[in-house]
């Protein structure tokens, strides 16, 4: 995790999403693919180890959504990484729903939103950047056991109780590790 090169990469990716939105630039899309597709695949394989077909399908689906929705992306409502993460998460939920894990007549499209927040302003963008920097640095300093639980929850898509089964830890321990981590990263602001 090198913060300087991260920032450079992020600037390039941000330019590329604008090129896709404004010029339908396919070369910019390939660069976005080179960066994001391997991450989307890993994200899917974390939830379903060995499911390479699913990982390929979802990676492609997410890239198509980026192509079709690039003009809706608003940097003051979310960073590009956050936007792509929420799209990948939604695509994974969708895929699992259609393939039986969640049988439901509720359509997650209508509410697990990709946060196109119309009210976002430039002030928010600066706040967002600060949050992101703090979370990124905080993650590097997090004890392994807390980081491991966060990966279970976010990358493997496990609920707290599924994570506790996987790790052979009491549910209370999992919950308190998540809470400790969220506190250290100042994610939960007391109301």
């Amino acid at each position, binding site marked *: 995790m090198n913060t300087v090169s991260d920032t450079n990469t992020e600037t390039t990716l941000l330019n590329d999403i604008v090129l896709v939105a404004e010029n339908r630039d396919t070369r910019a899309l390939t660069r976005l693919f080179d960066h994001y*597709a391997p991450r989307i695949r890993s994200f899917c394989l974390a939830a379903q180890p060995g499911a390479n077909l699913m990982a390929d399908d979802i990676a492609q689906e997410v890239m198509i959504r980026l192509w079709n929705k690039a003009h809706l992306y608003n940097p003051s409502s979310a960073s590009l990484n956050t936007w792509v993460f929420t799209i990948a998460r939604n695509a994974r939920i969708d895929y699992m729903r259609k393939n039986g894990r969640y*049988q439901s007549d509720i359509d997650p499209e209508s509410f697990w939103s990709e946060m196109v927040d119309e009210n976002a302003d430039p002030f928010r963008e600066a706040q967002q950047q600060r949050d992101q920097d703090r979370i990124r640095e905080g993650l590097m300093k997090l004890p392994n056991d807390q980081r491991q639980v966060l990966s279970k929850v*976010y990358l493997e898509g496990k609920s707290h109780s599924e994570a506790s089964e996987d790790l052979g830890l009491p549910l209370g321990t999992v919950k308190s590790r998540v809470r400790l981590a969220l506190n250290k990263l100042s994610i939960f602001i007391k109301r």
Partner: protein
Amino acid sequence: MLCYHPSLDMLTDYSSGSLSLPHALGVSAHLDQCADCREQLRRLNTLGAELFAHQETTAPEAKLDSLKASLMEKIGQQPQPTERRAPAVDERLRSIPASLRRLIPNGYDELDWMSLTPSFKLAMLSNEPGGAQVALSRIKAGAHMPTHTHTGNEITLVLSGAFSDEDGVYRKGDFICRNDDDKHRPRVTKDAECICLIVLDAPIEFTGWFTRLLNPIMRRFHPSTVPSNA
């Protein structure tokens, strides 16, 4: 200022995508009305994005190349992206949280309400086989909801009006999560009827001598006791 919110655990599961769809729907309808929780969620999503962005990636080069080739072929067939503006919202739907509009397409009055008592009506929004039940409850101004206990977790989100119970007063946008030990008797405030979204893991059990007769009805409509497609 709202007083009752989803727990941090629940928001985390919402952000990571592991919350069941019926619960996520309840959380989302609260988020539509709560800027505080939207901020928490924004930070939780940023955390998810950081973990996502810094994963180990191991896909073989050749595989990615063929995936890329097939993507480029597909985007050639995509229609031009649609305009940004969403269609104007129907007047009847304005007071309904955006997340619920698809389930309540013609407003509250057009739903299929069942009268369980003269002052208490219920309309089913979704029955997920093996999952939770999503419904709206509608109680007349000043009326009590029949005394009941929960046989599982219950989420209540106030959509209009207000009600109170032993623990407090709940207003539009408030999100209340109760578990199976609670036995309570909510009462709607006198000024207006109260409509709530309720998400039930298991059928409500009514404990009053008369309303006990409703239990077979509640069970009949709960997905945990209904064969799928019923």
